[in-house]
């Protein structure tokens, strides 16, 4: 069935308990504190497509990414992979699903174990998921993977610190690809990199998608990057998806005031010398989210309704879903 999306989030929420230790809480009569990192997130990623998530720091992008690969269990709602609810635990079923998905992390320096050689790093998923494979087969596979991401098979005997940031990110990509996943979560894979290196990595990811038909969940805060890689785009604010839809549509004509603000804040090469109205306000703490629409304290168009009523996400026709009282009504 071509219709089944590879990944589907249905009203997924994830909370974290950030309370003080039990005794402390009892003694100073503090309530239990929950941090809602993700709330009511619904979206689908179709096979072979890329969904990008953008938003300011702490808005819950990474949490969504981890929910998608099963590192976190949702507190509410369901995550479906290929139509099936995401299994948890470390059973055979989980392994089978895990093999079909992988994750690439933000920091090319921290995501590789500095004490391991490249071939061990790249072969680790093979060893775990296919223990029967022979050493020589494995070595061949590692060499092939390294070639695939534009590194030399001879690099396999080196340590991560002998590589540049871009090369390291290639190694993590090779590791992610080694279990032949269909689905990759990329959590800010280039935000620590220089533009020139970033271009190398982004191009590679795009090539891989074209060649292998991979599906990406791409997390970033750089709208320009997102525009380059994504088919679809989700904009997050304080744990909620405020706007989801085709990337080009959103970027050309943002519907939610927050999306507009984000777009306006991007420094633009074309705008040399001109000055813009700076964005006001700071991101509130996710522990005590503002009531109603969480964006209302920073929103230039906020009304009384925004302060009290949480807007529900609703489709506005052009394939987009937006959560704003002012849009679509």
């Amino acid at each position, binding site marked *: 069935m071509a219709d089944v999306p590879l990944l589907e989030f249905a009203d997924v929420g994830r909370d974290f308990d*950030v309370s*003080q230790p039990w*005794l*402390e809480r009892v*003694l*100073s009569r*503090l309530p239990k504190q929950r941090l809602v990192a993700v709330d009511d997130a619904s979206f689908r990623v179709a096979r072979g497509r890329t969904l990008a998530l953008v938003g300011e720091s702490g808005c819950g992008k990474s949490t969504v990414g981890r929910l998608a690969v099963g590192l976190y269990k949702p507190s509410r709602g369901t995550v479906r992979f290929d139509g099936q609810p995401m299994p948890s635990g470390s059973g055979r079923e989980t392994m089978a699903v895990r093999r079909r998905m992988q994750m690439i992390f933000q920091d090319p320096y921290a995501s590789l174990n500095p004490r391991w050689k490249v071939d061990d790093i790249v072969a680790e998923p093979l060893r775990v998921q296919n223990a029967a494979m022979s050493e020589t087969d494995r070595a061949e596979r590692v060499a092939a993977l390294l070639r695939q991401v534009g590194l030399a098979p001879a690099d396999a005997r080196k340590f991560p610190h002998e590589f540049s940031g871009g090369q390291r990110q290639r190694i993590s990509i090779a590791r992610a690809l080694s279990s032949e996943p269909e689905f990759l979560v990329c959590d800010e894979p280039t935000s620590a990199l220089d533009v020139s290196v970033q271009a190398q990595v982004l191009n590679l990811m795009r090539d891989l998608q074209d060649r292998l038909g991979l599906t990406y969940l791409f997390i970033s805060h750089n709208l320009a990057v997102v525009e380059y890689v994504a088919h679809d785009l989700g904009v997050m604010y304080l744990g909620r998806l405020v706007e989801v839809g085709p990337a080009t549509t959103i970027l050309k004509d943002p519907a939610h005031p927050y999306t507009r603000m984000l777009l306006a804040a991007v420094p633009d090469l074309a705008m040399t010398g001109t000055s813009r109205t700076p964005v006001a306000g700071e991101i509130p703490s996710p522990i005590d989210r503002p009531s109603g629409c969480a964006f209302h304290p920073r929103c230039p168009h906020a009304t009384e309704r925004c302060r009290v009523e949480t807007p529900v996400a609703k489709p506005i026709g052009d394939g987009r879903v937006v959560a704003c009282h002012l849009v679509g009504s």
Partner: protein
Amino acid sequence: MAAFVLRRLVQAALVMAAVGLIAFALFRFVGDPVVFMLGQDATPAERAAMSAQLGLDQPFHVQYGRFVARAVQGDFGLSLRQLRPVSTLFAERLPATLELSLAAALFAVAVGIPMGVYTALKPRSWLSQAFLVVSLIGVSLPTFLIGILLILVFAVQLGWLPSFGRGDVVMLGGWSTGLLTVSGLKALILPSITLGLFQMTLIMRLTRSEMLEVLRADHIRFARARGLPDRLVHFRHALRNTLVPVITVAGLQLGSIVAFAIITETVFQWPGMGLLFIQSVMFADVPVMGAYLCLIALLFVIINLVVDLLYYAVDPRLRLDGAAAH
């Protein structure tokens, strides 16, 4: 803050209870005090009767339970060796050990920190190197040998300082202090150096390495970039940041100072808890040992608490954690 202190106290009680339990589990093995209590000509029947009288024949958890039940009422029983209440013995001995330990800690801190700062600020000067090596030689010798050598030099050869004891003590309420008499103060010097030497070296080296780290921190670079004079940079910003970890370690070490006082007290015939403990171990004096271990645990927890409070005082980040949660 009150909650914090309370939590620590609950924790203290738990730690002490655990220490007591372990101690009592081990006591069965330390020997049979009854043999000594009854003298050489007692018959086995008399010994058994005495054992039963003292409850020493019961399983350790029963003994422990009784110990705890009485201890919470402040009754630690009778020393089997001296046949005097443990609490009285402690009251007599504790001031000596505490004064010695505090003096040793003071020595360790007052000498260790400045030396550490100096060696960090002037890492290449020969004096720094000398400090580092000499202090290491000091801790490369066992405490008892250092004690004897100090006695040999300062008491026997030079005759400046007494070789044993606390000198004259003055009673302040129930507390016997040697800090108010000249002879008491003189008597304190050698033992506290002996006891504090190891901690001094430790603190000095810790201060040095922390300071070297801190001096490379961004905010120190920024402080220099702001044009602050070295004096401010070193002693206001760098030192204060250095103190945070030093306080923790030094505090924990204070606990072991009290424990290590056993050796120093033996060498200098310092009439403190350590001397009492080592004698009670030899005699299998269970009540004294149990109470001593619990006391050490209590001291340790108190020190920990004080260290944490100090920590709070020094580091605002911790101070406001609770507030930030609101």
